[in-house]
């Protein structure tokens, strides 16, 4: 739970550093907040306490993250007709990185289901190794999607700190295990509550201030 709150606060704070009150409108900011929070969710999936102690919560959080990513992807073409071209050939690189990140997470999710896990992996260790690799790849692709789009990370140092943060967080997560396992993995209710609060804060600050 603390990891989820920490990742959420860190990611959103970093996007607010340069122009905290500057928004692109409620619809754009809400759609992007959903995407950023989904990334915080992916980072949390790496947090200790998630697995193997509470595999069910890990799976539930993964489901919530995938639904958030789907909502993020559907949001823009549904609310702004012109943005559907960003899902077609000719779209900028950062959009293809986002699509690729989503596909990699879908593959990681599918391969982790009981039937697939035994079919594709020789051992539990092999499964965990490839599951983490796919997760890291998805994080790197998502980080490229966010930084290259430049919507909230306009300055180079912001983008650099963001990249370091999202790549280091899963790698460092295991080294700080003892302090974080106490709080355990977040439940779906806790996750949704944090996301709702963060969404409202992000959108309200940028549009009502």
């Amino acid at each position, binding site marked *: 739970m603390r990891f989820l709150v920490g990742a959420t606060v860190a990611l959103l704070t970093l996007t607010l550093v340069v*122009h905290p009150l*500057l*928004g*692109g*409108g409620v*619809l*754009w900011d809400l759609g992007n907040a959903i995407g950023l929070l989904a990334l915080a969710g992916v980072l949390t999936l790496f947090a200790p306490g998630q697995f193997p102690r509470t595999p069910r919560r890990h799976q539930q959080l993964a*489901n919530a993250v*995938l*639904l958030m990513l*789907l909502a993020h*992807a*559907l949001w823009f*073409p*549904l*609310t*702004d*007709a*012109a*943005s*559907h*071209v960003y*899902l*077609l050939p*000719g779209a*900028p690189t950062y959009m293809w990185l986002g699509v690729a990140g989503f596909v990699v997470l*879908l593959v990681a*999710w*599918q391969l982790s289901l009981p039937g697939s896990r035994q079919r594709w992996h020789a051992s539990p260790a092999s499964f965990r190794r490839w599951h983490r690799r796919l997760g890291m790849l998805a994080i790197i692709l998502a980080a490229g999607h966010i930084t290259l789009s430049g919507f909230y990370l306009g300055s180079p140092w912001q983008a650099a700190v963001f990249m370091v943060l999202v790549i280091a967080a899963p790698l460092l997560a295991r080294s700080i295990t003892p302090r974080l396992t106490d709080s355990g993995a977040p439940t779906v209710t806790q996750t949704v509550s944090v996301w709702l609060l963060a969404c409202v804060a992000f959108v309200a600050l940028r549009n009502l201030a």
Partner: protein
Amino acid sequence: MMRAVLLAGVIALVALAVLGSPWPGEHPERARYYDSPEPILPMRFDHPSHATVNCLTCHHEFVDDSGNDTCMSCHVRRPELAAQLEAQFHGLCRDCHVDRNASGDAGGPPRACVACHVIDGKI
């Protein structure tokens, strides 16, 4: 259950990408506007609402003598400029709105893509 939801979502995403938004309103599509060599989105610039902006902010050709035709005659037709079309015009239009908003002046950022991406024969 989760697999069915994800599958339905991915199908909806593909349908949205190919067919566009189901809601009524402007639905710009990529096409060869302004004689562009590649399909692009249409664009609009509302001159009257920008009357207080210095012309030279956009019209560099007034000082560098680089042409006297419409913006698109160079920016979509010349290959070396066409490749940067999106970056250049997003940088020019959107960033100007963002900067003015950040400095407290009137003119916040454009709220939606379709605010600018509609057909304008004069641009």
